[in-house]
């Protein structure tokens, strides 16, 4: 009997020496891909509409964002956020100028304005913004949407 008991081997421990390496690799991956949000949203997070005819925005450095949505305290009307504060429609022009100043001359025609608007805002607000953009000749725009069927937007 004791003969068998002596033969019982101990389970070898799993070698964890390479564990830090694995974790570091993951860490670097996330460090490289992470994008910290540049602006805080002062309005309610817009729930974007869905569409299927979408294009990816290629050069993120050439995109300026305009957020449109409802205010956090539920006051009626649509609010426009430029950079990190709620602004008037008239400020859109200045916003585009300041965005242009940040870029070099040859990049200016490539600048795209991405409109991130909530599904509940009125088209009138969007039209006012577009009018302002036309005034300063910022003609490339992108209506930010999620991927999905556009028919789901309206029930």
């Amino acid at each position: 009997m004791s003969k068998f008991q002596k033969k019982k081997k101990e389970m070898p421990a799993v070698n964890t020496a390479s564990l830090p390496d694995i974790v570091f690799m993951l860490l670097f991956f996330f460090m490289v891909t992470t994008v910290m949000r540049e602006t805080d949203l002062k309005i309610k997070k817009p729930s974007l509409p869905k569409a299927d005819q979408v294009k990816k925005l290629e050069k993120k450095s050439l995109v300026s964002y305009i957020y449109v949505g409802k205010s956090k305290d539920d006051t009626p009307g649509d609010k426009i956020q430029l950079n990190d504060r709620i602004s008037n429609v008239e400020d859109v022009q200045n916003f585009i100028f300041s965005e242009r100043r940040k870029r070099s001359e040859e990049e200016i025609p490539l600048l795209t304005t991405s409109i991130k608007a909530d599904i509940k805002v009125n088209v009138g607000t969007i039209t006012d913004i577009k009018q302002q953009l036309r005034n300063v000749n910022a003609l490339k725009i992108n209506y930010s949407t999620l991927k999905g069927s556009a028919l789901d937007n309206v029930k």
Partner: protein
Amino acid sequence: MARRNTPEINAGSMADIAFLLLIFFLVTTTMDVDTGISRKLPEKQDPNIVPPVLKEKNVFEVNVNRNDEILVEGDTYMKVSELRAAAIKFIDNGGGTAADLQKADLSPCTWCGGDKDPASSDHPKKAIISLQSDRGTSYAMYISVQNELVGAYTDLRNIYANKKFGKGFKDLSVAEQKIIKKDIYPQIISEAEPTK
């Protein structure tokens, strides 16, 4: 005197530190890809310029009112789901005869699969979709309508690409795509000022 060995630094907690950092980046990372419908706004017009006269049959009028209802060509009430088919029918009609199109330096549309109805559009290059919305229209509806109209062009381009090159529009070379975009099915969507 025996030299003492320098003690090794205990690296056992290295994994813990790395984990902590990893979790921090995992939480803060946002991997959202920005997608959307790209459009180009028209340039600001000189108010003195007289807009060119268009034949009514070459214009596909889409009206969206403040109750999110769609009226097509001024007389047909439509749902969003029906809009794409109607737009395709209009663009792909190609009803113009050689005599009609001579003035515009075009020849009749040989690739159109439409009904060749003389009361509808002459040629895809002449077919204009005019979208008029109300200030009170919801953005969701607006995007849906835009999406369906752009989708109509995408569908037509795909059909053409499949017939001519045997592959989808997306798989064509840039030059081939350019030809289709310019000469076969150019995207002409005009937006009128919204009604108050």
